[in-house]
């Protein structure tokens, strides 16, 4: 029975989420129908984003292929940072073993960096 009870919990969330979504959508509609809210549409109100820049052109444009290299390189160093943070926090507990391990890890990334450098991935031409 506890099995069903667990699903009941999820069911509760489901019901709440549906009711919440419907209510927030329906409240303005009902209030407009009752005449509480005046209906005065304007271009500023119906813009896609209330704040931020207006988009220029369509989003289906071709991107320069070189962004792909940058994205890959970014990923390499991003992951490096993600791993370096917890390592730095626990540095004192990890001791020499942790240090050597991180040196090996960074060493592998340095190989990737050298490779990218030599293959001219950083040059924009």
């Amino acid at each position, binding site marked *: 029975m506890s099995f069903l009870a667990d699903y009941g919990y999820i069911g509760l969330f489901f019901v709440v989420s549906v009711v919440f979504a419907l209510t927030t959508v329906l409240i303005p509609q009902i209030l407009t129908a009752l005449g509480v809210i005046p209906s005065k549409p304007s271009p500023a109100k119906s813009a896609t984003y209330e704040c931020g820049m207006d988009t220029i052109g369509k989003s289906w444009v071709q991107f320069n292929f070189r962004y792909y290299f940058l994205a890959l390189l970014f990923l390499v160093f991003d992951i490096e940072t993600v791993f370096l943070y917890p390592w730095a926090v626990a540095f004192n507990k990890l001791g020499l073993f942790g240090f050597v391990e991180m040196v090996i890890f960074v060493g*592998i990334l340095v*190989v990737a960096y*050298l*490779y990218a450098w*030599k293959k001219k991935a950083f040059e924009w031409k």
Partner: protein
Amino acid sequence: MIWALLGPELLLAIFALAVILLDLAVKQKGVLAVFSIVGLLGSIGASLALWGTNGIALNNMLVIDKYALFFDVLFAAAAILVILASTDYVEKLKGFQGEYYALILLATTGMMFMASTRELVSIYISLELTSISLYILAGFLKDAKSTEAGLKYLLLGSVSSAVLVYGMALVFGTTGGTHLGVIWNAVKGLNGIADNPTLIMGIVFLVAGFGFKIATVPFQMWVPDVYEGAPTPVTAYLSVASKAAGFAVILRVFFEAFGRAPWLSQSWGMLFAILAAITMTVGNVVAINQTNIKRLLAYSSIAHAGYIMMGLAAVGLMESQLALARSGILFYLAGYGLTNLGAFIAIIAISNNTGSDLIDDYKGMVRRAPVLSLGLAFTLISLTGLPPTAGFVAKIYLFNAALQSGLLWLVIVGVLNSVISAYYYLRVVKTMYLGEPASTERLSSSGPLRVALTASCFGVLFLGVLPNTVIQVTEAIKFLVS
């Protein structure tokens, strides 16, 4: 010292990085091939030095036993032959030789980890290391066919990986562990199929995911296109090492986690028996109509996956046959590996000259290249399973294991299929020996190719004439089970 236990794998990983760096420094790219082969030989040496140890490393996730070490040697040997066979080929890969060798080494590293890991997540990671390297290698030529092969392999491979992970999740959900020993402990306490639909579902997904790697029938669609489009040395490597790695994982996972509870093992044993029958029949029947030799060997490799699955079925249906069936699978993989590599090496040598993979262009090849034709004919005879070759002994040995498990019907299907396969293999031999050559120009082949072809042909002959020496080794191979 656990690092010594991981020697074969670590050595290859270091060499792979070193090849990338070396590629940046040297102009003479032939050095890279030599360097890679040195690394692979070192890895074989490390495996042989560890032979006989039963070690556990990295929190019990990796197990170094004879089973794993046997596969380490098999993968590294296959990689050496492939690299020897690619020395002419990489000339075509302008400016990407270093990546080519490094990726082969990385794929081999991944396969070695696959053979020795006993934990689902590390199985997945090593499988991905192998697959991602092979996806890139399949598309390496960058022409229309090769790109299609790479993309197809990538897309279908990703789907199959997803299926595999889903299966692992279901198994984890029912048993509460990803370690094979933990899974087995949980399976031991369960009481029958009917009560555990989720587990069965998970196992079916695992079969589907691994089935993609070894190319069993419902998941074989990618094989002909990828094998045809990929660079031929990569095709050879895919058809031998990638398949062997798949079988290495399947046997360990299914025996250790699900194999010792008869109610469970008999259901997956029967599943593999039926898949084996369908796979070998489809592979052989479709191969008859092929006009391209790479496609022909692709379908033949599907058929051989079917034969090898007979061994898995034998293990599942009768646990007492484990030793015989395991030894049969290992011997078959070794024999099939050498044979298929030999056949592909001969094809590489021929197509380097003629630029064509069509069987019609092999007419009268014996007058243009007698030694290459003899090598190709010999390996095709071994693939058929005629004496005095490795294929013959391997088939008898594996069929015997299936027979001992009471799979008479499957053995009959297997024998009938071997007869069908004789038709299309020997047709190629007939074309080479009796056809009229289009030109009389002699073919030339490079030294490394000749060395590789000779080595694999002698290996096939050796396994066929003196199988006992190797069978003694494979029979002594056990895997550690927790």
